[in-house]
């Protein structure tokens, strides 16, 4: 226990006036986790000995990337004057893909620490989350972190923050999560500035689920923020969206290890364990009430997570398909946003069409499949959701180019749009505008943020963003630009499906839905790549790119003319036969497209854009 909190308030019996619920809004590497760790140390809930760097980020991938995927909550005691308070710090995901989870975390708080790197200034995603926090009427405490860094410019960025949220630059706290400087003042400021939660203790219980985590030993752990009433151990609860009821097996607070309590009361933050095994039974945003005396009205703001980006995931070794299925089934238990269904591809065999919240979500899932399940997988180019209407007035939802209607004439194709906000030093404005323009963006506005940074806002098709946009943005701005986007409906566009054909046979994995103006470039790119990657066959192989029946680009692989061992005498026979057996084995890894033998590696390399030279010899 911290010397500064002599009589820590007891969970389930804490006066709401002594509770402060807050989160930290920060960009990926601005030091949120380090600061959180420092708070755990200073308040005494984690001893220095137990301190693991970035205690709150549990998954390996999170720790390596320095980003938080799943939020957690931790209760810390803190004393100001003679009064001991209970501070609930709710950790939020830092990435745009998880903005729904962010919004639920924010809804569980009354205030937010706006944490900005004193050497870098605010970033686009932070700005987006700040807008969200203000929308939720959260009290904002602006803080500059990493003031110990030689490159820190606290004056400059304090002015920037003051400009943004109002107030004086002097109100901006300066801390170092690393050294601990300023952290005690920050905790005092939290108590002083952030309003205590308000709720009706005698009303039917209502708690909002702001996170739901799968634990392989305990099943789903549901994190809730109590709004009204009280929840008790062994009580039957009801999920208001599904009406499903469960018994509470354990209720408690994180301190930061799960600590069972006698329940949770108004304004408190804690966890429930009911024995359910799938996070879908405990959905973020849903309202928990009691089965015996249910509330009539759910808390506002619940929505189902909607996948925005789709990609086919295939095992590189076809025999790993059952393992991939099992792995996805397991990931799904902890990832409510992941959806998938089986899919087959001529080029890649059996796999799954998966839906993701965004590109980072896709990356995290593929990375977890590799790392936690030891699976080698290939992901097809990401695609978004198109609404295609044919002239006979049928509308098809297309998440995979193969679903694009081919028979009927197309009347209209609608594509999802986003509003993208890019923050960058002003020197890069020209470059960024050029890039956005080339991606069919239309400029919405531009604003200076402080002296030398600019926020540029564009309306852009999401399909353009998922195709390599972020990498391009980073490489064209020396890594300085940051990006945030949010869906803003859809638009009709002149989109076509480009197919790639090998000797007249379509190779499904390479079909893409692109804007008509870019169809030719895509066709040239893919036919060129495949020409480099596919070994010569006994016959000439034309490679074509086509829109419907119209060929827009073509290449050809010349026929192989020589495949014979020149000398085959007595001593060569055994060796030759063994070579033949080896070729037979190699053949098993070949995919047949019509009569064309294509090594699996060629497909993979073409998809990933690695155009290493094919072997000249078999």
């Amino acid at each position, binding site marked *: 226990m911290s010397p500064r909190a002599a009589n820590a308030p007891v969970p389930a019996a804490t006066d709401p006036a002594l509770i402060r619920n807050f989160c930290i809004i920060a960009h990926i590497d601005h030091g949120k986790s380090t600061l959180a760790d420092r708070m755990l140390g200073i308040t005494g809930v984690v001893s220095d000995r137990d301190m693991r760097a970035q205690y709150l980020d549990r998954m390996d991938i999170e720790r390596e990337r320095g980003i938080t995927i799943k939020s957690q909550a931790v209760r810390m005691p803190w004393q100001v004057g003679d009064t001991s308070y209970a501070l609930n710090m709710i950790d939020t995901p830092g990435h745009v893909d998880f903005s729904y989870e962010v919004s639920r975390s924010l809804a569980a708080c009354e205030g937010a620490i706006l944490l900005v790197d004193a050497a870098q200034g605010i970033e686009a995603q932070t700005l987006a989350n700040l807008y969200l926090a203000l929308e939720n009427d959260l009290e904002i405490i602006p803080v500059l972190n990493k003031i110990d860094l030689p490159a820190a410019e606290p004056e400059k960025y304090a002015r920037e923050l003051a400009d943004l949220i109002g107030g004086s630059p002097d109100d901006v706290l300066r801390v170092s999560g690393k050294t601990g400087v300023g952290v005690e003042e920050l905790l005092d400021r939290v108590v002083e500035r952030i309003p205590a939660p308000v709720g009706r203790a005698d009303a039917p219980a209502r708690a909002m689920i702001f996170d739901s985590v799968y634990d392989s030993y305990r099943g789903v752990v549901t994190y809730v923020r109590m709004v009204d009433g009280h929840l008790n151990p062994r009580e039957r609860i009801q999920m208001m969206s599904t009406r499903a009821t469960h018994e509470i097996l354990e209720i408690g607070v994180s301190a930061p290890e799960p600590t069972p309590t006698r329940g949770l009361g108004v304004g408190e933050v804690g966890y429930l364990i009911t024995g359910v095994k799938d996070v879908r039974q405990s959905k973020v945003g849903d309202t928990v009430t009691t089965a015996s005396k249910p509330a009539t009205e759910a808390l506002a703001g619940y929505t189902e997570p909607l996948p925005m980006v789709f990609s086919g995931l295939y095992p590189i070794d076809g025999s790993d398909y059952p393992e991939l299925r099992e792995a996805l089934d397991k990931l799904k238990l902890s990832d409510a946003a992941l959806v998938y269904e089986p899919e087959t591809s001529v080029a890649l065999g059996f796999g799954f069409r998966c839906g993701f919240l965004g590109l980072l979500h896709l990356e995290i899932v593929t990375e977890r499949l590799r790392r936690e399940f030891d699976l080698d997988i290939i992901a097809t180019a990401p695609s978004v959701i198109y609404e295609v209407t044919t002239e006979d007035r049928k509308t098809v939802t297309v998440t995979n180019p193969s679903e694009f209607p081919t028979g009927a004439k197309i009347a209209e194709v609608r594509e999802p749009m986003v509003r993208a906000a890019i923050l960058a030093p002003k020197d890069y404005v020209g470059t960024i505008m050029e890039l956005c323009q080339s991606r069919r963006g239309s400029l919405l506005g531009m604003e200076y943020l402080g002296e030398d940074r600019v926020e540029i806002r564009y309306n852009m098709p999401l399909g353009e963003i998922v195709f390599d946009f972020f990498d391009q943005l980073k490489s064209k701005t020396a890594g300085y630009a940051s990006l945030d986007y949010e869906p803003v409906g859809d638009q009709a566009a002149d989109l076509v499906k480009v197919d790639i054909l090998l000797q007249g046979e379509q190779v499904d994995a390479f079909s893409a839905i692109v804007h008509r103006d870019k169809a030719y470039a895509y066709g040239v790119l893919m036919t060129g790549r495949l020409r480099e990657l596919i070994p010569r066959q006994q016959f000439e192989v034309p490679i074509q790119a086509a829109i419907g029946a119209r060929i827009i680009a073509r290449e050809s692989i010349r026929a*192989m003319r020589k*495949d*014979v*061992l020149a000398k*085959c005498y*007595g*001593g060569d*026979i055994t060796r030759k036969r063994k070579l*033949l057996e080896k070729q037979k084995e190699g*053949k098993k890894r070949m995919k047949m497209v019509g009569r064309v033998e294509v090594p699996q590696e060629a497909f993979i390399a073409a998809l990933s854009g690695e155009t290493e030279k094919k072997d000249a010899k078999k």
Partner: protein
Amino acid sequence: MAGPLPLGDPAPADGLLPASAADGATDRAFGVYVHVPFCRVRCGYCDFNTYTAGELRGVRQADYAGQAIDEIRMSRRVLEASGLPARTADTVFFGGGTPTMLPAGDLVRMLAAVRDEFGLVEGAEVTTEANPDSVDRDDLARLAEGGFTRVSFGMQSAVPHVLAALDRTHDPARVPLVVGWAREAGLDVSLDLIYGTPGESLDDWRRSLEAAISERPDHLSAYALIVEDGTKLARQIRRGELARPDDDLEADMYELADELLGTAGYDWYEVSNWATDAAFRSRHNLGYWRGDDWWGIGPGAHSHVGGVRWWNAKHPAAYAERLAAGISPAVGRETLDGPTRETERVLLLTRIREGIDIASLHAGGRHAVAGLIADGLVDAKAALAGGLTLTRSGRLLADAVVRRLLGDG
């Protein structure tokens, strides 16, 4: 005999063969191969089992004929003890290395040992390989007197820069001389050519072909250069000092060779071999492709008797030690099962003009023939008559044809 020895089962110390090796032996011709593992210099492209004086670890070339004769005697005893019927040798072939590194007298002695142990059929084919600069008029006359009927000269090219790239030391002007001497001695003559050497143009190759044809040999072999792992040539290519032979250029060169040779009256009878008349086809080599039996004498030599293949210790020193100890020089063998023998039969017979009997193929192979005809790889007329004969482009893709006949593509 390129590359390292294959992996197989250990061979027994007495060299005895399983009973199955005797099945059908009377229907198979029997030949003897004698390996001579010596060269004056090692050519950059060569990974054959051969040694220059400096690499011999105390083995004396002068002792070699005696050791080989020991193995020839042992071979007859082993065949007899394994229950094989006595068979007269149909062919004897001295290869290397450079057999003519040994005095003609040694070669004649080894041949005499074969004759003593097995006998030679009337009109037996007895060949030795020779480098143009390792034999003279006398040697050739003595070989002919000693029973040799045929000599195969390693001409390789008529173009000096190509010979230099191959590390061949002979003067191209020497070829007409040695061919003349061989003729004088009454020997049949074959010339070996190599194409696809780094730096060799299609015109260079044409010059070599024309030079070879102008000597009117009875037989010609033309081999695409194979870049073998572990050779100096492979290292030079890896380091970028020499260009890797280009498959398309080699295909052009093969087509040119077949064209010029055909016009000059040479017919192909195996992918890399041509002769003026069926009588001049190498009977010894045809034995390899037809699945006949042969005993390979010498270090690293391979043998085949009735579905058993084996190979001798590779280094001449190890070879000599085993023989001195009275144990078989064979160090590894494999006994082929039915499907493997069938694979080899298809793989070998497909290479030769007389081809494979289509009716003898399994159903998948027979089914593949129509596609091969459609792709222009197999001669339609021969196929209608029941035989599978490769077209010119089929010969260039012979390995692919074999894979298709074996039912996997």
